[in-house]
C-alpha cells in the first residue's frame, strides 16, 4: 500500500530524518513512536508532500503521491489551525469532500449527508451547527477526524490525534481507528504515549531521526529496541511508568 524509500528531510541543510525505508503491504493500525524531536511529524509531512524531500521516493500502490491524492486522509495537529475561524462544525467536515469535488463546484446535498454520517461516527452529530471554537479540545480533535473520514480515503495519516484529549475521546478515537482497519484501510498514527502502544497498534514504527525498526508490534515493541530508540531517556520514562502503573489500575476499571 505504501512504500517509503530512502527518505531524507533537511531543514536549512540540517537533516531532520535520515534514510527512512518503510513499507506496508496490508491494512494495519500503525503507531509511529519515538522521543520528542525524533522527526515523527516530519516523516508524516514528508510522506504527504508537505515538506520537500532532500532525497528518496514515496509511492502509494506503486504510484507517486500526485496521482493518488484521493486515497489519502489527513488529520493534522490540532494546534495547526485558528479555531476562531468562522465556520461551523459541519462546514469544517465538509472540507474533507473538497478534494473530490474539484474546482468551483460547491458541496451539495450528497456531500452534506455524507459529512453528517462522518460526524455521527465520531459522536458529534448533535453539534454540527456549533462554531468550531466553541468545542472542547477532544471534540475539536474529533472534528478533524470526521473531516478525514469525509475524504473517503484508503490510507490515513494522523499527527498526534490523542494529544491533550480526555480519556473518553481517546477511546472513541481508537474504536474508530480499529474499525477503519477492519474495513481494509491503513492508518498511520504519530503517538507519544508508550503505555498504550501495545494495546492500540498492530504495527509499530520506532524512529529517532533514523528508522530503528518497523514491524508487527509483538516483534518490534521490545525492551531493547525501545532502549535503542530512547537511549538514556527511557530510564526516566520507566520510572514514571512504574509510578503511573501502580495507581492506574483503578482508572482501567472505569
Amino acid at each position, binding site marked *: 500500500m505504501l512504500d517509503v524509500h530512502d527518505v531524507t528531510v533537511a531543514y536549512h541543510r540540517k537533516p531532520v530524518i535520515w534514510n527512512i525505508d518503510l513499507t506496508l503491504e496490508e491494512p494495519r493500525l500503525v503507531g509511529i513512536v519515538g522521543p520528542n524531536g525524533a522527526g515523527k511529524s516530519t516523516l508524516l509531512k514528508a510522506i*504527504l508532500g*508537505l515538506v520537500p524531500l532532500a532525497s528518496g521516493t514515496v509511492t502509494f500502490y506503486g504510484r507517486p503521491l500526485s496521482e493518488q491524492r484521493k486515497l489519502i486522509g489527513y488529520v493534522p495537529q490540532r494546534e495547526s489551525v485558528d479555531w476562531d475561524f468562522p465556520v461551523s462544525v459541519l*462546514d469544517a467536515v465538509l472540507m474533507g469532500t*473538497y*478534494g473530490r469535488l474539484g474546482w468551483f463546484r460547491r458541496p451539495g446535498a450528497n456531500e452534506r449527508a455524507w459529512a453528517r454520517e462522518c460526524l455521527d461516527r465520531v459522536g458529534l452529530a448533535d453539534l454540527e451547527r456549533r*462554531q468550531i471554537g466553541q468545542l472542547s479540545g477532544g471534540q475539536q480533535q474529533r472534528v478533524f477526524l470526521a473531516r478525514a473520514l469525509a475524504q473517503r480515503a484508503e490510507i490515513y495519516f494522523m499527527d498526534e490525534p490523542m494529544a491533550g484529549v480526555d480519556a473518553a475521546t481517546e477511546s472513541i478515537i481508537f474504536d474508530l481507528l480499529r474499525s477503519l482497519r477492519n474495513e481494509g484501510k491503513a492508518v498511520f498514527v504519530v503517538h507519544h504515549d508508550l503505555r498504550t502502544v501495545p494495546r492500540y497498534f498492530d504495527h509499530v514504527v520506532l524512529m529517532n531521526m533514523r528508522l530503528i525498526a518497523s514491524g508487527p508490534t509483538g516483534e518490534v515493541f521490545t525492551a531493547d529496541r525501545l532502549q535503542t530508540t530512547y537511549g538514556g531517556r527511557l530510564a526516566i520514562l520507566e520510572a514514571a511508568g512504574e509510578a503511573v502503573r501502580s495507581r492506574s489500575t483503578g482508572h482501567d476499571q*472505569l
Partner: protein
Amino acid sequence: MISYNTLIVLIGTSLLGASSGLIGAYAVLRQRSLTGDALAHAALPGLCIAFLIVGQRSLPAMLFGAFLSGIAGIGVISGLRHWTRIKEDAAIGIVLSVFFGAGVVLSRLIQNRSDVGSKAGLESYILGKTAGMIAQDVYFIGGLSLGCLVIILLLYKEFQLVAFDPAFARVQGWPAFLIDLLMMTLIAVAVVIGLPAVGVVLMAALLIIPGAAARFWTERLGRMLLLSAAFGLSIGILGTFLSARYSMMPAGPLIVVVGTVFFLVSLLFAPRRGMIARSMQERRFRRQLGVRRLLQVFYEFIEPTLPDSTVVAYEDLFSRTFRTERELNSLLKALEADCLIEETERRRYRLTAEGLRRAAVEVRDQRLWDLLLREHPEHAVEIAHFDTDHFSKSLPASIVNQLENELKERGIYPQVLLGGRGED
C-alpha cells in the same frame, strides 16, 4: 439633488467599498491586515514613477505602477523575513516607511516641476479625493472591483479551505500556494483601486475595518463576507457623500471616521461577541456561581443539624461567604425571589424544600468534582470547558456512578438526596 458627477462617484466608491470589504475580510482572517497597510504605503512611489513615464495623468497607468510597487513592497517584506533575521513586524515597518517616504519625495519633485506639476494632482493620492473622479476613472475602478467580486464568488470554497488550513488543502492536492498568491493579488488590487478615493495613508482602514466589524456579528464565513461587503459599501458611500458635502475635506479621513462608527457599534453592541453582551454574560455567570456557592455554604452550615433545623443566621452566612454585605444581600434576594429560601424572622433564613434539594445537589456536585480532580484528573480536561454546565451532565454515567458510590462509602454524600426525595 445629486448631480450626475456625484452619482458617478458614489457608484464608484460603493463598488470600491464592497470589494475592499469582501477581500479585506479574507485579509483579516488570514492575519494579513498589516501586510495590506504596507502594501498601500508601498504603492505611492510606483504611482509617481508611472506618472513620470507616461507623462500625463492616466489612472490605469498610475494604478498599474502602484500595483507593481505595492507587490515589490510585499516581496521585500517576505525577502527580509526569509533571508535575514529580521522579524515580520520589523520588516513591515521598514517597508511601509521607506517606500512611503520615497513616494512622498518623488511626488514633491514632480509637483515642483513647472511643466507637469499642476496636472499631476499627486497630493490627493496621499489622503484621497473623490471629487475629482471622472466617469472613465469610475468605469475602470468599478470594472476591477467587479472582477474581484466574481473571482471571490467563484473561488469561495477554495479560499475558505486555504485560509483555514493550507496544509490540509495541499494534502488534497490543491495548489495552496497559488490560491494564496491569488488571494494576496486580490488584496493588492483592492488596495490599489482604493487609492484615488481613500489615499495611501488610510486605505488599510477601508480594507480591514469592514471585515473586523463583520466578525462581531456572525460565526459563519459566508455571512461574514456578505456583511463585510455591505459594511464596506455603506462606509464608502457615506464617506464620499460627506466629503462631497464638505468639499474642503479629503475623502480618506471621512471614510475612516464613518468606518470607525461602524466598528465601534459592532464592538459594543453585537450580540454574543460584542463587549456589552460579553460583560453581561460574564455578570450572569458570576452571579450564577455566587448563588450556587451560597447554596453550598447554606447546606454545609445546616448539615450537622439536619433534618431538624434548616435555619441560618445572616451573620453566619456573612462570615463564611467572604463577600461584601451588598453582594450577599443581593444574592439572598435572588434566592428569595426563586423561592429557595425564606426569611423566617429578621436576618434569619430558612431553606425551603426546593431550596434544600437544590443546595444538596450543589454540595453533591462540588464533592464529586473535588473527588474527580483528586482521583481521576485525566477526565478533568473535558469538563473544565463546560463552566456553566452541571457536573453530572458532562461525564459518562458510569464514572458519575462510581464517584457517587465513593462519596456514599465515605459518608459525605448529601443525606437529603438519599432519603428518597429524588434527584435532579
